[in-house]
């Protein structure tokens, strides 16, 4: 049985193909300004690369901000449910996950899972940039660094300075001021990561205080952020190697579950 999950995010679109519990393909592309079209194109491309056609796919699910923009398949689910499904699939049996942190490009989500892996509570920060990947992008740009260099600099830093600004826009002006005082870029980068980690950890504490902690989304690929967040939460964070694809994987699992449910009913 082959199932597919398509995560149409605001920044990137991800497609995951799942066959009998094995990931056949996991592909990512920027969403662009027409996410629906991007998703459809990416989906067909991924299938072609895997040597499959649409008929071979038994069930498709879409998720993410643009989940209704592409008319791909049977099931539409929220990224919250998809994320939980993906995490449940991936978690080790002896170390159940109870808190999931998803730092995306334009929003950040924290999920609290119960013992069965169902979503007990969740919180989304999608109104303010200060706490999302966007914040770091903006500051990297201000420091005239590429995103990768920005992260590398942050990892290099050994001193901790404090950034005061809570708002991403004001943070930009604060960075200018720090540069003028000859604060090294690595320290600024590290401080930026600490600031965002502080906001995220505050959000986490409001939602859930149970381990184990799982970190997914684009932000999870930022080693400096992982380190800062682990420090702020004083917890170990589990980061899967394909952190950005967990939600799409969860969507595929959701499609499979629904299909199995229908088969059972018959």
């Amino acid at each position, binding site marked *: 049985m082959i199932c597919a999950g398509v995560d149409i995010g605001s920044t990137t679109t991800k497609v995951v193909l799942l066959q009998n519990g094995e990931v056949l393909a996991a592909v990512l592309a920027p969403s662009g300004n027409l996410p629906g079209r991007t998703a459809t194109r990416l989906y067909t491309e991924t299938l072609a690369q895997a040597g499959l056609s649409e008929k071979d796919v038994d069930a498709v699910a879409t998720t993410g901000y643009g989940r209704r923009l592409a008319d791909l398949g049977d099931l539409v689910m*929220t990224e919250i449910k998809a994320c939980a499904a993906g995490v449940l699939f991936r978690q080790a049996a002896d170390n159940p996950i109870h808190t999931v942190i998803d730092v995306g490009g334009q929003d950040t989500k924290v999920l609290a899972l119960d013992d069965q892996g169902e979503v007990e509570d969740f919180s989304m920060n999608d*109104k303010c940039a200060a706490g999302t990947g966007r914040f770091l992008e903006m500051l990297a740009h201000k420091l005239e660094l590429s995103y990768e260099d920005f992260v590398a600099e942050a990892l290099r830093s050994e001193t901790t300075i404090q950034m005061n600004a809570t708002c991403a826009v004001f943070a930009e002006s604060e960075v200018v001021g720090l540069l003028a005082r000859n604060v090294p870029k690595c320290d600024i980068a590290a401080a930026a990561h600490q600031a965002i980690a502080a906001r995220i950890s505050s959000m986490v504490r409001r939602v859930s205080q149970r381990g184990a902690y799982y970190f997914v989304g684009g932000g999870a690929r930022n080693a400096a952020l992982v380190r800062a967040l682990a420090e702020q939460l004083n917890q170990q964070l589990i980061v899967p190697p394909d952190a950005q694809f967990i939600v799409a994987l969860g969507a595929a699992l959701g499609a499979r579950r629904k299909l199995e449910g229908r088969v059972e009913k018959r």
Partner: protein
Amino acid sequence: MTAEQFDTRYAVAPRFAGDPAARQRAELVVRQQLQHLAKLTHRPGNIGWFEKQVVGPLDQRQGTPLIGYFCNTIPVEVAYALGARPVQLGCGNPALVQPGEEVLSGEICPLAKSSFATFLTADGTPRKCAAVVIPTSCDAKKKLGEIVADFRPTFMLNLPPEQNTARYLRLAVAEVERMATFLADVLGRRLRRRDLLAAIELTRHRSVLVRRLQTARAANPAALSVRDFFIIIQASFAGADLTEWLHETTRVISEVEAAGPSHTHQRTPLILTGAPIFWPNFKPLNLIEECGADVVADTLCTGAQSCFDPVVCDEHSWSALWRALAQRYIFASPCPCFISQATRLSRILDLVAEFKAEGVVNYGLRLCPLFDMEVYRLSRILKERRIPFANMRTDYSLEDTEQLRVRLEAFLETVGAGT
């Protein structure tokens, strides 16, 4: 006259603004919401009458004065008994928030801002009112009273901080009596006992109809959308002739009851609680119904709860009548402006049990600390009892509609997880 609650030494000439752009935007919002509603498949035949009352403009009959008021803690029977019509001045138009903000502070709730904006236009409802009655149910309203006193004769009804009759019944009764004296003075009429009793009987009739409509709806939510239900209820405090309203609503009830209980798959039944949802701010209701759930009951002062309890009077002495009014409106209110939230909690839990709801959605207006802070205990108490709960904290603007949709959909997914 202003009941001498405000110092006339410092009266300020009211400044009227007539921002035509804001008015156009406001009308656009109303049209958009009406379009949303037009998509409903099943609407009562006479819903047009109710829409007309709620959309306006207010049809002011000659000789019938209007008394504007805020909140559901004002005994409106007094206004009816004096031959006037009470009109709720709460406004739900997001386009009117900005004009209000230009004059008042931005740090108050959108309801206060947009309601105040209606005072600023020449053909706004408040201008047509003989007087305005405002309870001290929140800080914004307290200070709004002072500002509005320069526009129309204003009466502030002082609510007790606790719903404790042993301590505060006398205060509340005195306030109700004082309000009646004020209104009688302003309108130049005498309040007679039999008129008050007749008004109480009218509003009792309204309670009967709202209860029947709510029960009929719950058996078959598809027969009447919660949005139409809210329009019907809000039409009764938009200055309509109450007798006509009773007649029209009876027709709606027969239609809904004739549809009978539903035999098709029921959508997720929810209890809605929280801050006022005034026309045309039906965003939360639109979202809930579009996401595939149904509000089967509510505790809103702009929904069924507002008309649910009748005024019950056993004796007909003046003091018994004031007490009956005060106890129903002030001491039985589930409003969070009182320090104990027990009345509201009991109501929510009772509704969940009675209507077999599968979840509770709390609607909170941003910048309202009363509803916001109650969420802390409300969410924990519902969690203890394993009742799924979602908090929708937002303001009037439509820009966060999609974010709210995701939250609601995710919530409904967890509620439906059991099925």
